[in-house]
């Protein structure tokens, strides 16, 4: 059994993170999850027609913006703007998790993936990379390597803190997101 990084400690971190992100920093974004099963693809595996997204879901996050750049290419002047969105992983887990079940604010039940769209300040940003490797004490409780008789209960120790999404700006007309139907 590990001595540090138990579930009580992780609960404290979750409290602090949610207070920090939700009440102190209060940066938010809207997350559009790509609906792969409804998107038709061509023979090259590219989207043949429209893309479909779920959402949006409003999420607390930490946002790290870079400067806008205007590189010159053979086709003219381009525009790039990379933004990194950092999410608390527990916020993104499903509603039935015992730390999400008693609140309406958390439990988005989504896994950020490449191709998902994030709306931030009237701009759309497509995810081109995700990282979920910030482990507290270097330990991911989803992989306790059970059954270890010398160290039982390892699933209660450590934490995967964050999911970090690196994005780039995409023009609004290219995304062309419009409401598909009312639920």
């Amino acid at each position, binding site marked *: 059994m590990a001595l540090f990084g138990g579930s009580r*400690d992780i609960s404290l971190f979750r*409290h602090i993170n949610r207070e920090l992100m939700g009440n102190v920093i209060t940066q938010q974004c809207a997350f559009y999850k790509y609906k792969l099963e409804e998107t038709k693809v061509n023979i090259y595996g590219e989207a043949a027609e429209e893309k479909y997204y779920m959402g949006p879901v409003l999420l607390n996050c930490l946002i790290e913006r870079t400067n806008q750049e205007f590189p010159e290419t053979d086709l003219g002047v381009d525009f790039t703007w990379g933004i990194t969105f950092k999410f608390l992983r527990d916020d993104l887990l499903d509603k039935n998790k015992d730390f999400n079940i008693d609140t309406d604010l958390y439990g988005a039940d989504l896994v950020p993936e490449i191709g998902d769209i994030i709306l931030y300040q009237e701009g759309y940003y497509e995810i081109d990379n995700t990282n979920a490797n910030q482990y507290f004490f270097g330990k991911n409780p989803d992989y306790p390597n059970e059954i270890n008789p010398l160290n039982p209960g390892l699933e209660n120790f450590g934490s995967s803190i964050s999911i970090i999404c690196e994005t780039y700006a995409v023009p609004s007309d290219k995304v062309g997101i419009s409401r598909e139907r009312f639920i």
Partner: protein
Amino acid sequence: MANIPIWPGSSNFIPGNTPFGFYDNDYQFQQDADKFANFAARRLGYPIVDVELQDLNFYAAFEEAVTIYGNEIYAYQIRQNYLSLEGVNIANDVPTVNGGPSLAFSQVTPNLGTIIRLSEQYGTEAGTGGNVDWHTGSIALTSSVQDYDLNAWAVSQGYADKDIEIKRVFYESPPAIMKYFYPYVGTGAGIMNVMDTFGWGNYSPAINFVLMPINYDLQIIQQIEFNDTIRRSNYSFEVQNNKLRLFPIPDGTVGKLYFQFLLKSERLANSITGDEGSISNLSNVPYTNPVYTHINSVGRSWIFEYALALCKEMLGYVRGKYSTVPIPGDNVTMNQADLLSSATSDKTALIDRLRAYLDETSREKLLERRSLETDYRQKELNQVPQLIYIA
């Protein structure tokens, strides 16, 4: 694991919520516990920021503060009164409070019991009281024998070897009064001449009809003693390791020599008194925890402040278990260092303030102040013109 709940903004105290439960059934304590929890949470920043403590933490701090307050008060009382309390039989002499003996509501009038007990040792050695018996023994003197082993004598009498300690030896020259009428001592012969002159010389020398002043008798006795001191062998002795050496060496008219002694074992044994039911040290002076209802507003104010310092300390430890807390993509450092240093300084200051307050109300200080007041009052009264009344 589910979220561990933190302070939600309110609480509802029920008996059993404190670690020790010393005051759980005290109605005032129950009322103040929730008020304090609210007070402390607000002082720590709630509702602007979360306070990572639960109501149980606040209650624990509150209970500890009350207990520490009582400890300080009662420790001070013990220091003030210990000399008067040591040896008191707890079951018989201490009043009962809440089912058990307690001095919490008692006034202790100073007494000399312990002082006298402490002084008994001097009485024992001086032969003027004390708590160790002096025994009497005698040894037959032998003509021409100067040294006598009193240890050997003690063993022969059934005492342990080297257990006796000689306190007094009755080996002195005969009192001068015994030679007062001794015709060859060279003193006092004047009486006979006077009697012969008066025609009473044929009466027995032991019958004296001449009325002499008492200073005459005293001078005669002093003359005899002085004569014996200068011209004759002194009666003296040495005692070394219970080996007795006599001066002068006893001659043919010897008898018994008496002496007094004590037993070292009795001296040690008699220095231990008391039993399980008596006050023997600071730990069993019967002061129980204070009754919260009876603590006045001055005391409660101190308790609230001290409990708040404890809450700060707890919060500091909670936030400081890890030097940094991970947030997505980064780490943050919490304010545990500030909380801990503030809590430590607050606690020290509060304890110092309470002790200073207690010192100012010590019996010594109160009497000193009263004396000063009397002096100043008298000085002020002296400013009033004193009239001379003629009857």
